[in-house]
């Protein structure tokens, strides 16, 4: 197996692993579009990074962080659903970024290139970063699992039982933002957003408890990575979309399975 494929596999499996449980939270908490929104706010971050001439990675990080905090703040009033809030933030940050670019007109710079990676271009350093982040986030998830689940089941019950709801919610957003920001640069935004929600959605019908769903989602994600890369190798499909298609196939399969079982 060529080395680049091994690196892609390593990076993809790392992302799929951590995207399993995180994606479940995205599905449960109706944050399916968190990834897309992050990508747009990252674009805004790059733009301001260019204007202020600061380190672009730092600018992206700050942009993503601010987005997560803005979302937490907006969620306080429960009048609007999370997907609406994400839509507002996503489109507003994108528009702001586009206006800012046109004003400062950095011209020939392809902003997207700064943001989005390709899983087949993974380097050894990328793999190490991904696995370090995945290990950290996984540890944090395990540590916070109970309160995270508690606020997802019922916020009021959790609060009464002594969970620091907004702290835990903010932590979840930040963990998710961290994973998306890193994965976006390595495997691309389409792949990370898809790996978050499609395996989790596929796992829903096959699970009876949250933990089962998280593990199943990771497994489906990992299989999709392997299957997608294989398809890319056999039929020469672009790797990212091939993995997403494999995950989509997994979802269709889970639909069929659960229909059969009825």
């Amino acid at each position: 197996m060529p080395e680049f494929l091994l690196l892609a596999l390593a990076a993809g499996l790392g992302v799929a692993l951590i995207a399993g449980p995180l994606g479940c939270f995205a599905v449960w908490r109706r944050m399916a579009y968190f990834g897309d929104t992050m990508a747009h706010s990252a674009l805004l971050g790059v733009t301001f990074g260019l204007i202020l001439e600061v380190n672009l990675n730092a600018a992206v990080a700050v942009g993503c962080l601010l987005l997560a905090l803005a979302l937490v703040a907006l969620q306080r009033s429960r009048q609007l659903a999370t997907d609406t809030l994400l839509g507002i933030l996503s489109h507003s940050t994108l528009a702001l970024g586009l206006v800012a670019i046109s004003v400062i007109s950095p011209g020939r710079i392809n902003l997207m290139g700064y943001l989005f990676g390709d899983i087949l271009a993974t380097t050894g350093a990328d793999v190490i970063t991904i696995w370090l982040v995945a290990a950290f986030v996984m540890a944090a998830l395990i540590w916070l699992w109970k309160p995270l689940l508690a606020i997802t089941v019922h916020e009021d019950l959790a609060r009464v039982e002594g969970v620091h709801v907004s702290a835990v919610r903010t932590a979840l957003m930040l963990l998710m933002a961290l994973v998306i920001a890193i994965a976006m640069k390595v495997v691309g935004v389409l792949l990370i957003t898809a790996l978050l929600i499609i395996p989790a959605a596929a796992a829903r019908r096959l699970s009876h408890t949250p933990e089962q769903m998280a593990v199943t989602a990771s497994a489906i994600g990992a299989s999709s990575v392997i299957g997608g890369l294989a398809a890319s190798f056999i039929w020469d499909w672009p790797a990212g979309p091939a993995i997403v298609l494999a995950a989509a196939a997994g979802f269709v399969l889970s639909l069929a399975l659960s229909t059969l079982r009825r």
Partner: protein
Amino acid sequence: MIPDTAELLVQAQHLSVERGGRTLLDSADLAVHAGEIVTLIGPNGAGKTTLVRTILQLMQHNRGKLYRKPGLRIGYMPQKLHIDPSLPLTVERFLTLGGATKAQAHKALERTGAEHLLKQPLQSLSGGETQRVLLARALLQQPELLVLDEPVQGVDVAGQAALYALINELRHELGCGVLLISHDLHLVMANTDTVVCLNGHVCCQGHPSQVTADPAYLELFGHRAEAQIALYTHHHDHAHDQCGEIDPEHSHHA
């Protein structure tokens, strides 16, 4: 009513809550001590749920003072529960969420008469079953204070009495304070130490025997309540002295 030595768990003083330009709660006072059962009664929209949620700090109050014993462990049973169907959750997993073991969860379900629901998805439960599971969950907190918002709502005839009995049992077993909201005057009066009669403000408050004699109480609940209490009295002392007192005026709709 309760020994002076009992620890104060929560206390509301002159608590007022306003929302959307309306005063939902007007200078309400309330205290719950360890080992005490306090029952909130009052008509619909009286602000019972509001008061309880304010005490639990799920809502902000606009005026007044709130004391909570530091580090108070609370078991709460909300009036309604909506759980997203995208979350796969069996009753067992729901109960063990708070840290209880499976054995404890099973035992708690047995006590609330719902042990056969252990493996069922939480979202598929019937109304009364949900109440039983919620009560089981509240027990599992090993609470110092049990807050129950209409706990037997939708529970069947046999279950209502059994659950109230269970609550009374728990108070002795755990030594916890209980703050209860209920419309079943006949069932709760028997076990309650303090009744708080709410209608935006606190109308009257005290031992059931005091409260039922209070003019404010009679005005709010009138003779219908008396009729219900009659039943409880039957159970309790098997004296028939109140049976004849029922106001014939109210039988027209029966």
